[in-house]
């Protein structure tokens, strides 16, 4: 069971989940715990011979009931591949799975914020290569979500709506536009190839999305990650996070703010160089970037065009 301590200097919770120290670390493909359990093979986390998408409680949870949730979302029973290589139908189904998990976890009294995310690549600490993501149900509103709510107040309305309006007006950092979804490198990106995939309409969460929204969101996310992989012609590491309304009071999600969008934080600044969070980023909280968002947006647009 993890414990939380409040860091007074930072004004934030720190979670101590010491059992995670012994979690499975980069096993061989033959011992992947996210593979299906095949006849005669080792028992894995998923005790069936085949599946499409599986969700289960994390064996090494950072949060667990009655103090939150930690789930693993396995995208496919095929060990090799990535979110980018899923079929269109599977990617679309995954959006529905995300929606379902947001709804169920968000309804729990011990979950104030549902964060769906994927860490891809050893550069961001991945310990299992099988295509998968995770979901944390925080028993509090974490700092990034709180900052987004503060941005709503500062801008006098929905911040992502206003920022999308500015990006559409500026055009320079847009990656692509769909009928329902827009992707861009933000004006003040912290990471060289940071990208935001944003719903045009104000949808507080996936629960506001209809089937067409989810279908286009899946297409947009895969378009972006395929472009990422084409950028340096290598599997592109990233952290992908779905931002939605807090679920402190699900019945009043709209009043709590939030605008469904997906943010990508890739650590690469060139094909082989990583951006490290060092003195200024950790000590002062100020990112110093070696690239301009307009430059990286142009490079990403070209990569996306190559990948289509």
């Amino acid at each position, binding site marked *: 069971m993890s414990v939380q301590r409040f860091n007074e200097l930072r004004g934030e919770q720190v979670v101590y989940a010491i059992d995670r120290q012994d979690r499975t670390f980069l096993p061989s493909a033959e011992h992947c715990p996210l593979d299906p359990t095949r006849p005669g093979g080792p028992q894995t986390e998923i*005790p069936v011979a085949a599946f499409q998408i599986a969700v289960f409680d994390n064996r090494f949870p950072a949060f667990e*009931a*009655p103090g939150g949730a930690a789930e693993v979302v396995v995208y496919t029973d095929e060990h090799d591949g990535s979110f980018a290589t899923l079929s269109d139908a599977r990617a679309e*189904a995954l959006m529905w799975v995300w929606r*379902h998990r947001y709804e169920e976890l968000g309804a*729990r*009294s011990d*979950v104030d914020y549902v964060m769906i995310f994927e860490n891809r690549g050893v550069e961001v600490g991945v310990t299992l290569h099988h295509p998968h993501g995770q979901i944390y149900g925080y028993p509090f509103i974490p700092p990034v979500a709180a900052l987004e709510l503060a941005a709503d107040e500062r801008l006098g309305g929905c911040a992502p709506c206003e920022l999308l309006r500015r990006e559409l007006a500026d055009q320079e950092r847009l990656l692509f536009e769909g009928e329902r979804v827009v992707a861009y490198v933000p004006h003040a990106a912290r990471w060289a190839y940071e990208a935001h995939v944003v719903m045009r309409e104000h949808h507080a969460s996936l629960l506001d999305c209809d*089937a067409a929204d989810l279908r286009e969101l899946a297409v947009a996310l895969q378009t972006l990650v395929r472009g990422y992989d084409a950028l340096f012609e290598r599997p592109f590491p990233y952290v992908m996070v779905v931002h939605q309304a807090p679920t402190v009071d*699900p019945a009043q999600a709209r009043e709590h703010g939030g605008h469904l969008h997906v943010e990508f934080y890739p650590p690469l600044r060139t094909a082989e160089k990583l951006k490290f969070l060092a003195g200024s980023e950790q000590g002062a909280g100020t990112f110093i970037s070696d690239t301009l968002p307009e430059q990286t947006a142009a490079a990403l647009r070209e990569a996306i065009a190559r990948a289509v």
Partner: protein
Amino acid sequence: MAAGADETASPERPPEERYGVLLLDRRHKDDGRALILYSHDEDVEEPDESAAHEHDADAHEPDEHAAVEPRDGASVNPDKAGEQA
């Protein structure tokens, strides 16, 4: 029940759950952890916009193994999607 589902299935089998384009198979692992297997039922017509906000009552029954109850008044959560449809 999803289109094409076997209506003569064994009574021991838990009721099939639908969620949008998904079929759900809820299980529990040997150590008690929850496991949900989702499948994209390609035989089921994709829901239209209203169907996307439809809530199958079966899908919202609290998990008997869940350690946490739904919030008061939240049920899991017909009001949420209803107000946002």
